[in-house]
């Protein structure tokens, strides 16, 4: 009987096994969207996915929410955690206003402006008092919530839509904070300001479209 080649050597180290598990998981995760998008999701799963997808489906929202995390990281503690705590509550307040029928003026312009202003603050590494940072982020969060928090498809679970919406927003902030950790190193500080420039440029593009 000939020895067949093993997938992993029997003496594989824990590190090698861990790598193998990571590769399998990554491959599996990569395949998920192909399966999920084969059919239209309905009911509860549709509610969660619809809510989760809303904040990440618009680049203007993504830019602003990641920028909140980036700016928080640049301002460091306590802003790094206060901004992501304040943003979801104010965003949901905006959603509540929208669902209550309260109209806000120039919502799309405000959303684009949020990316422009936050991007500019990161680009210039501008430090403002904590209260001012909270007010600014909270103000823009209201418009983001008003625009996206109310767009649930009929027949879906409202609570799962809301959970998905809030989790996606929080993860975008976390992504911004994660990227913002490069602020700890000198070259990272320059790169972070560069990222602010990218956010600002994106915001200008969306502002142009909103005003056109």
């Amino acid at each position: 009987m000939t020895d067949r080649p093993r997938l992993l050597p029997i003496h594989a180290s824990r590190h090698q096994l861990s790598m193998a598990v990571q590769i399998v998981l990554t491959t599996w995760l990569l395949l998920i969207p192909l399966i999920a998008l084969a059919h239209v999701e309905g009911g509860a799963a549709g509610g969660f996915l619809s809510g989760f997808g809303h904040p990440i489906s618009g680049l203007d929202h993504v830019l602003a929410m990641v920028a909140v995390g980036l700016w928080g990281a640049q301002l460091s503690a306590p802003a790094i955690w206060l901004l992501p705590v304040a943003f979801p509550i104010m965003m949901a307040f905006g959603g509540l206003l929208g669902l209550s029928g309260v109209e806000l003026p120039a919502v799309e312009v405000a959303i684009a402006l949020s990316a422009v202003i936050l991007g500019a603050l990161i680009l210039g590494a501008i430090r403002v008092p904590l209260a001012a940072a909270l007010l600014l982020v909270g103000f823009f969060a209201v418009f983001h919530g008003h625009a996206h928090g109310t767009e649930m498809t009929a027949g879906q679970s409202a609570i799962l839509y809301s959970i998905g919406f809030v989790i996606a927003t929080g993860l975008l902030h976390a992504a911004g904070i994660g990227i913002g950790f490069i602020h700890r190193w000198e070259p990272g500080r320059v790169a972070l300001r560069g990222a602010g420039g990218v956010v600002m440029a994106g915001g200008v593009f969306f502002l142009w479209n909103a005003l056109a």
Partner: protein
Amino acid sequence: MRTTAWIASLALLAGAPGAAHAHLVNSGLGPFYNGTLHLLLSPSDCLAVLAVGLLAGQGGKASARAAAITLPLAWGGAVLAGLTLERAAEPGWLEVALLILLGVSVAAGVRLPAWVLAPVAVLIGIVHGLETAGALVDSDGALVAVAGIATAVAVLTLLTGALAVSLQAAWTRVALQVGGSWIAAVEMLMLGWILQGIS
């Protein structure tokens, strides 16, 4: 391990297949587990337990212990009362408003002593228990199902409270507050949906 537990909790919450069910889910394991499963598959109920557990844990060991006793007792008692009176409450603004308040309290890092937290837990238990009673009407073995619901509430409150109490590192306390802000945000959106007649 804690990170894994958080991810597992989020996945459970995300995968829960619906809001409050009009009837008990059939687990195939009898009324006790039907009751347990009913709670675990109701995101609004899970959020309520999570909010009370986090706030209790933030207040310290005494508060966490008080919540683990008062919340399931009030919840189970309210279900029984709802069944006896044959009246069940619909999810309403009071339930949502209470959870917004709890979420904001967690986000603000409020530390409630046990004697303040216990009445809050009782109130949450009564409001949610009356709503849960609607699912048990015409169910076989309703009393056993109530025991299952109360047990699930007790275990979840205990685990959440213990987790919150055990958090020592600064960033984990921050994660707790972020969790509170997420609960408040979800419930604030729910308030809007209720105002629109959707829940």
